[in-house]
């Protein structure tokens, strides 16, 4: 298969990691929305913020520009697009697996709207379904703090959004 400019740029942008959860790439997170390369080699990358005030966004923007530049495309613009609003349903299966292995319970799938499918948040350490929320707000905007009632380990949960 011939590697096109678009593939190269997409790969360069997509491999940028979230500075707060460095096991996840922005492609895993689902915040890399679109990549365009025009005839003159000018690159446009669209990313979406997870939360309105996410402090990682400026770092991600700079990292995307740097990574695309390093792939041989110095003329790059990174746009932040708000609509449609990012949702945890856009996180890839690979991303969910990586989170679990990292010790963070991945977000559960949503039904339409804000209604959550009421299924347990399994403990990423022992797999038990017996867990409870300790604090809804935790170390980053996107995480809540839970505790496993079987193995007693506290763990972060990437909350549904």
């Amino acid at each position, binding site marked *: 298969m011939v590697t096109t400019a678009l593939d190269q740029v997409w790969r360069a942008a997509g491999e940028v990691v979230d500075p707060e959860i460095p096991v996840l790439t922005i492609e895993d997170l689902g915040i890399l929305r679109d990549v365009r390369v025009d005839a003159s080699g000018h690159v446009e990358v669209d990313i979406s913020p997870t*939360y*309105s*005030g996410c402090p990682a966004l400026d770092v991600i923007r700079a990292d995307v520009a740097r990574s695309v530049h390093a792939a041989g495309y110095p003329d790059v613009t990174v746009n932040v697009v*708000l609509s449609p609003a990012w949702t945890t349903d856009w996180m890839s299966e690979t991303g969910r697996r990586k989170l679990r292995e990292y010790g963070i319970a991945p977000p559960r799938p949503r039904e339409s709207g804000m209604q959550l499918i009421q299924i347990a948040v399994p403990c990423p350490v022992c797999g038990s379904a017996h867990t409870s929320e300790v*604090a*809804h*707000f*935790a170390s980053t*905007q996107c995480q809540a*703090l839970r505790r496993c009632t079987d193995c007693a380990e506290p763990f972060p949960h990437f909350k549904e959004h």
Partner: protein
Amino acid sequence: MTAVAADPAAVYALRYADDCLVLSHRLAQWSSRAPALEEDVALTNIALDLLGQARALYARSAELDGTGRSEDDYAFLRDERDFVNCLLVEQENGDFAVTIIRQLLYSTFQLEAWRALSESTDAHIAAIAAKAVKEVTYHLDHATQWTLRLGDGTAESHARTQAALDQLWPYAAELFESDAVTRDLVTRGVAPDPERLRTAWDASIDQVLSAAKLERPSTSWAPSGGRRGLHTECFGYMLAEMQHLHRAHPGAQW
């Protein structure tokens, strides 16, 4: 810098941006001094969401009024009379009950406003709103859970929460004021009718107050002026603290 007469949508975006920024700053004042570590984290997380919403709204307002002002211009280089936030959000943190009741009254309003604005004919404002709805849903849940615990808790917590409600209640009326700006935007489908928001707000608040065994205040005193730049005394002190560093060291970055 004086207020810029502009597109009503720019003024409207600025009002909500100022609400978000000022409330964000008030909540950030709890950092390192909340009643428990979890609350410290919760209040500052909420503050961060609001700061993000403020930034998006300032950018939109600057785009609409053509001044191209930066976020720093809005936050740090305007004087008290140029801020058009409502009086409720600038009120001092008080004890924890005051902060929670302020959150309850404002988040209930904000959730209704953002829901309605996510259908705005201004696509940019609609996008900001659709994103913010999800965040404010959590803020309101946080305020509601605490109102229930404090209102229906001990005699002390009940008394303090009722006192907080009595203190802040009059400031809620301003949230639903109509003026030339809102009337123009309602006509064009940019903004919801404040009266419609009031109905939804009343129903939602009444439900929480009743479950929390709190009495809905009956005062008709309704201070106003925030949307015209007329603020309560405490706001000047807050701004002085918030703007001091930036004004003492213009262009400072960290």
